[in-house]
């Protein structure tokens, strides 16, 4: 008989189809969907994150674990009592400033989605205007910016200035991260939050957007 611990292991090992099948099985057995979500899917995902931190897993494993988790979560959500969904109803515009690098940005997107946020991914090589325009048109609550090389740092400053000039700075929380950034720099640029790792984005979003 399948257990939630088995599901955790399948997610941790990124076996998407078996994990999906086991999620169905656990739900059919009548187990608590929140327990399946938290102790099975999310804990399995954390296991991969911990292995990654210990250099025992790679970003691709995190991406695959994200795919596995994303296959399981809708099944669980479908049986959650109406009104108790883990969806946050908060929208986050996410993208990379200037650079074409997307590994960290994609990982943040995956984790935010799994965390219940609606992610509007604007991709790579963005200008400050791209972030502003997308945030306005999508009705976003937050802007998350990946800054991975020095010239993009200047562009982040421009983004903050642009939002002020357009008189919308207070509408959005802004978080930033990436290889060349630091907590001190982010604070000096008036970012609302900074993260050194992808998973920090979820905690920041929950905190800044007051999500329980």
């Amino acid at each position: 008989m399948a257990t939630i611990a088995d599901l955790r292991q399948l997610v941790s090992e990124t076996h998407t189809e078996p994990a999906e099948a086991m999620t169905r099985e656990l739900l059919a057995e009548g187990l608590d969907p929140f327990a399946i979500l938290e102790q099975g899917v999310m804990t399995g995902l954390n296991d991969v994150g911990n292995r990654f931190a210990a250099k025992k897993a790679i970003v691709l494993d995190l991406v695959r674990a994200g795919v596995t988790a994303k296959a399981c979560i809708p099944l669980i959500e479908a049986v959650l009592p109406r009104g108790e969904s883990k969806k946050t109803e908060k929208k986050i515009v996410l993208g990379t400033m200037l650079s074409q690098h997307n590994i960290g940005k994609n990982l943040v997107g995956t984790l935010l989605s799994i965390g219940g946020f609606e992610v509007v991914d604007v991709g790579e090589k963005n200008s400050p205007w791209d972030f502003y325009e997308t945030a306005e048109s999508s009705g976003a609550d937050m802007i998350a910016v990946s800054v991975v090389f020095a010239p993009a740092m200047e562009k982040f400053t421009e983004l903050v200035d642009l939002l002020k000039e357009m008189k919308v700075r207070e509408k959005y929380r802004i978080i930033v991260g990436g290889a060349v950034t630091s907590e001190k720099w982010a604070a000096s640029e008036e970012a609302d939050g900074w993260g050194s790792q992808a998973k920090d984005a979820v905690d920041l979003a929950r905190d800044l957007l007051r999500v329980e």
Partner: protein
Amino acid sequence: MSKLLWEAIQRSTTGQLMAEEKFETELFPTVLADLQAKHKIEWDGESPIMADPDLADAIFQAGKELLLEVGLYCKNTRRIVKFTAEEIEEAIRTARTEITLGKDRQAITISPRAPGDPQHPYTFFPAGTLTTDIELYKTHAKVVMQEPTCDGVIPIPLYGVGDVKNIADSPAQTLVCLTEAQIMNEAAMWAGKPGLFLGIPMSATTPLTLMSAFGSGLYNKHNCTLPVQIIQDMRIDYDRLNLAFFAEQHGIEPWMSSSPALYAYLTGPEQAAMEIIAHTLGMLAYSGGSLTQAMSISVHGTYIGSDISWCNSAAALAAERNLKLPWVTFGSMGNPAGPLSDEAWFQVAIACISACISGMEGLWLAGGSTGVEARWAGEMARAAATLKPKEGVEMIKKALAAERAPDPAPVSLRALYDMKTLRPCDELVGQYRKFTRIFTELGLSYPSWPH
């Protein structure tokens, strides 16, 4: 236009269509893992250096097969550009194995060198510093260029010039980059080294600025190279091909560069070394270049560590035995505590020894920015050149295990040099003397070191 550049452009419109996600998460890692297993390429998890010739040859073969099987993904068209085995062989056969960088009395001709070859690897130290103060930037460049063992430099990117910020895609970035070029030339003149090799235009991030930098003449085919670097994990775009064509038209040496990221889509240094070879062969095909800068980085945020140095030495040895290209590796990021810390000096020494025993022709020492450190790097490369791989590995192990004094507080260049005479302070010279003694005791010698 060269034949293979033309073919690359053509095939970017006719090659197999594929979503980028499928390429990077399915095709590329699957073929990579299969080839690693097929050629039995393994790192023991500890060794900081790879000095096994047979394993180097296996890495080269695996890297070549990787390029042939996977090809290069063109981001503009979402198509895969593939080359045939015959084309790659032709690119290898016709590659230039010797190049000259710099001009007149500062010209250096880089020829193939094997591990233990008396010809030392050339050392390229960073010139400038992270600032918008151009006088301070110039002073940093001068203190490096004034050293007798400065073979050439690679600038530090300028954040801006006074109030002019380095804004990509704008004329401001071009202005900043031209300022960088002007300062580098002025500093070289001041140091009595007109024609010194000045690396690549580091303040430029777009093809337009790169081309403008060469259009000015401040950077030119004698003193600078043009980056045509491949994008991580076997990807290209039209920017690379445009730059390759520009370099070809103007007789500028392409700067072929490969920087795979460990633990992103690569499981470890073995796969990164394979990818560096595949990248190099791909760039050889589309750019017709020769000078290759190869290094691995880590998504965990470091440029140092046994995994990274193993990868860099493995790829260098694989290339030395099979390509004979002028090969430059990125070594030593310095220490946040600065040039008065022991760690900074050990890192430079280890990078130089590793370059010598891996058959590298050059070393880009990105850490540190004082002239005395540049002198130390040049002297170490000369002193360690003839080391046999086994001797070098033993010396590196001793250096890694050596006791370090506690890190001091970081200090600025103003505290390390007399800003009028540009002479180093006693404490910095003392650090230099301490390390010449340490490595003399370990068995190296250089004419100006204690006997």
